[in-house]
């Protein structure tokens, strides 16, 4: 084994039976194409959860599927072993593998609404798993009731007779969990199972998973891009980058004192609701399969990189109780990561508010979405609008922008009331209120170059000559730190973060007075989110912009806004300065939201697992 994750002589590992052992897993594109995942090794003892974290494209889902002996179309598992209770799943015949899936190893998909069959009753679907693996359970009906109770669903006949669409997202995910646990497998692979859920539901599902793994001695692998969720759930965590595990070790220690520069970057990018911190993202992007040259794949983005990094592929070394793939691990460990405190101080500026929303009621068709919403955006200030999905925050933004015209009440922009829809507004108002869309993958026309996209804005709103326009386009691209060579790129050649910068540039180029950012970071990776938020914060300050920042992520609010408005079911639950709302929430709803936000467990626990009488999943021998 190349990776020093051997559970061999460690006294701790001996205490706990190893359920899953993965060694040198390798997945390639085609038979001999470039590697997507390489040299992945880890072990998971019974009852423990291993977190597999990484950003999109890091290969975490590929690894998760390989644990079930599956590779997506075009991919091929070319090397390695997945030993489950001693048997290599990858060496099984297709027939044996099929028998093992569902019974000994099961999978919980990301989106339960897509994974459950909409035409079958949920009871039937859970029972189906037991029917396929008839040997695992005696009485199927009893087992269905039992497993439903375990995932905190009431196994009444009415519940079992429901169809997936009659359940909430959280309940659907519980059904998926019930199906996964029905046959009492040895291993469960969870692929971002809480991504689409609200924070409160998320926490309940996570508690269920943890409890079930404990009580049945199931080993679980939990794939996620959300470090905060993982930190509260798992005992050990593996950080993936460009198809390799770059750092693996006990959760508290790894998140408390990250060693690998990539892990450090990731953790610096995670916003926290407790402190106002400058978010530091990681510049550049992850190399895709086939573009990972020699040496460390992170070297081009790494502040600590030395010339050796680009030539020598780092082998895992053990530093401070975890295994790290970094040539400079020991040097870096000594350096303090350090986080700057953001000064998102309340600007004392007074005067007419940039925007006041008074008593706005909005509806979609006959369904009311907003009821009597009032808020004020002071000049040169950023107001965050926070709420769960369905709270009406996006509708509010669309009303202000003129994209949604079915509303009553008053929206006053710099002293003048705004017309309902964009069609009735004059060009000057349209120019001064700019809107940035949530999803940068649909907000840029795929058939136009970046230059054309930004220039079109000037063409519509100004009478500048072609030459003046192109000078302005170049300037604004520089402002969002994109070079002039992006002018002729098409959106599908850009990463998500780059696209969102183009969208920001498109809004800024016409010098607006009010910027509306609608969940602009929700489709981006954390390291990119941090960069975009930081960019917006700087721009807002430098250009004295008024800004509305819509988000579901309470943790982000502190990093960017001075004021916050909490929306609940279309009404304002609470509003005021950010510090006050986050530190002394008056409304019980806000308090609950704050409590449910997954927080990065960062305090380095000396020996948390052993104190609790448990051994960590893997305890690499420390050199000390």
């Amino acid at each position, binding site marked *: 084994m190349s990776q020093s994750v051997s559970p061999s002589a460690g006294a701790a590992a001996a205490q706990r039976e190893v359920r899953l052992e993965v060694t040198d897993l390798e997945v390639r594109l085609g038979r001999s194409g470039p590697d997507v995942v390489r040299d992945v090794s880890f072990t998971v003892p019974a009852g423990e959860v291993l977190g597999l974290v990484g950003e999109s494209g890091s290969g975490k889902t590929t690894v998760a599927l390989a644990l079930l002996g599956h590779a997506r*179309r*075009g991919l091929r598992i070319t090397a390695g072993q997945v030993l489950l209770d001693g048997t290599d799943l990858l060496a099984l015949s297709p027939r044996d593998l099929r028998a093992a899936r569902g019974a000994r190893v099961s999978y919980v998909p990301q989106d339960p609404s897509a994974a459950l069959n909409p035409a079958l009753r949920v009871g039937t679907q859970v029972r189906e798993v037991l029917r396929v693996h008839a040997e695992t359970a005696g009485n199927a009906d009893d087992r269905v009731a039992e497993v439903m109770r375990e995932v905190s669903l009431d196994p009444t006949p009415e519940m079992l007779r429901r169809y997936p669409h009659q359940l909430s997202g959280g309940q659907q995910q519980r059904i998926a969990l019930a199906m996964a646990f029905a046959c009492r497998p040895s291993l469960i692979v969870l692929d971002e199972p809480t991504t689409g859920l609200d924070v409160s539901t998320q926490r309940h599902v996570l508690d269920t998973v943890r409890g079930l793994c404990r009580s049945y001695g199931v080993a679980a692998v939990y794939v996620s891009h959300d470090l905060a969720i993982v930190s509260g759930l798992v005992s050990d965590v593996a950080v993936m980058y460009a198809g390799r595990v770059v750092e693996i070790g006990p959760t508290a220690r790894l998140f408390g004192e990250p060693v690998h520069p990539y892990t450090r970057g990731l953790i610096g990018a995670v916003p926290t609701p407790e402190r106002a911190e400058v978010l530091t993202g990681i510049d550049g992007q992850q190399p895709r399969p086939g*573009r990972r040259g020699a040496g460390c794949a992170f070297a081009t983005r790494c502040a600590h990189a030395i010339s050796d990094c680009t030539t020598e592929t780092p082998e895992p070394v053990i530093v401070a109780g975890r295994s790290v793939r970094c040539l400079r691990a020991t040097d870096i460990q000594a350096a303090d990561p350090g986080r700057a405190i953001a000064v998102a101080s309340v600007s004392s500026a007074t005067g007419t508010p940039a925007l006041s929303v008074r008593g706005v009621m909005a509806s979609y068709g006959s369904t009311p979405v907003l009821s009597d919403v009032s808020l004020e955006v002071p000049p040169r200030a950023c107001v965050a609008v926070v709420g769960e999905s369905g709270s009406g925050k996006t509708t509010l933004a669309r009303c202000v922008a*003129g994209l949604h015209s079915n509303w009553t009440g008053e929206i006053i922009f710099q002293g003048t009331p705004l017309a309902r829809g964009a069609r009735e507004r004059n060009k000057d108002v349209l120019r001064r209120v700019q809107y940035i*869309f949530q999803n940068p993958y649909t*907000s840029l*026309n795929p058939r136009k170059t970046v230059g054309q996209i930004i220039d079109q804005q000037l063409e519509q709103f100004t009478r500048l000559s072609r030459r003046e326009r192109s000078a302005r386009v170049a300037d604004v691209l520089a402002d969002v730190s994109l070079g002039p060579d992006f002018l002729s790129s098409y959106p599908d050649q850009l990463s998500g973060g780059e*696209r969102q910068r183009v969208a920001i540039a498109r809004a800024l180029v016409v010098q607006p007075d009010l910027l509306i950012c609608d969940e602009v970071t929700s489709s981006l990776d954390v390291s990119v989110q941090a960069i975009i938020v930081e960019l917006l914060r700087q721009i807002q300050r430098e250009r004295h912009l008024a800004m509305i920042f819509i988000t579901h992520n309470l943790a982000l609010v502190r990093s960017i806004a001075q004021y916050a408005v909490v929306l609940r079911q279309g009404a304002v639950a609470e509003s005021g300065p950010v510090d006050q709302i986050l530190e002394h929430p008056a409304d019980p709803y806000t308090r609950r939201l704050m409590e449910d936000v997954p927080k990065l467990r960062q305090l380095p626990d000396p020996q948390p697992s052993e104190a609790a009488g448990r051994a960590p999943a893997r305890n690499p021998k420390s050199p000390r």
Partner: protein
Amino acid sequence: MAVNAPAPAARPQVRRIRRHQWVSVLWSAARTPRGMIGLGLASLVVLVAVIGPFVAPNPPDALVTLAFGKPSGQFPLGGDFLGRDVLSRVLDGGWVLLIMAACATALGIAAGAAAGVSAAYLRGVSDGIIMRAVDVLLSFPQLVFALLLLSLLGPKLWLITIAVGVSHAPQVARVLRSATLDLSERDFVKAAELQGMRPAKVMWKEILPNLVSPLMVEAGLRLTYSIVIVAGLAFLGFGQPPPAANWGTMINENRDGLSVNPWPVIVPSLLIALLTIGTNTFTDAFARVAIGVDRRPEEAVLIEDLGAGDTA
């Protein structure tokens, strides 16, 4: 088919000419086996029709041999029902058909696209009116509809072309409406609206460029139908007036002599069949490339799963 092929390049960002992406899709479609067969068949027939008039040994309307004369060295395909040289008539009788079919297709695509895109983008009353009109037109079979127009207005070549084109428009409108419905919900269309862009300009500048692939597929499909309908109308007597040669007309006027000299029926039929099979096969190849079916699986995975993102 300019996809990021796995190559050990240090700098990613392969610059591609994307403005005319459909050209590259056409090109890669032509290189698939299916596309090669389709293109080969169609070009063969087009070649016959285009070069034919210049190499025909006899004038198409000259009575040079016996009625239904057997093939001979001088007249390889024999004589038709009046004793004209079949080979010369075949070589001369295709180009009008092709031009008419091409014009009818262009007309049908343009009219259908305009109707479908504006119905989908404008929604509301316009959508209702346009789509109900389309439903009415769709309730006539295409050939019957064309015949109806011709019997009302008289058989002129330009009128036949227009009639066939108009009869295509409803189907094209349907297809493009559904494609546009999806597109007009995308945020980049909303962004254009927030710039105060007029609806006509939004459709022309923002939506249409994204419809190139479905438009091309429709064009190929409609071309195939146009050929069949134009030839069918000629068979029924709505084509060039009698002395002129036309593949459709030839099939009809020489039916009686099938047992004596079948060539004046077989050869035009065969040419029409090969042409339609060719255009249809090529369209199929184009459509497959356009939706990525013909991509190698490695590339598909790269694009779908490992690439920057999905636009679902």
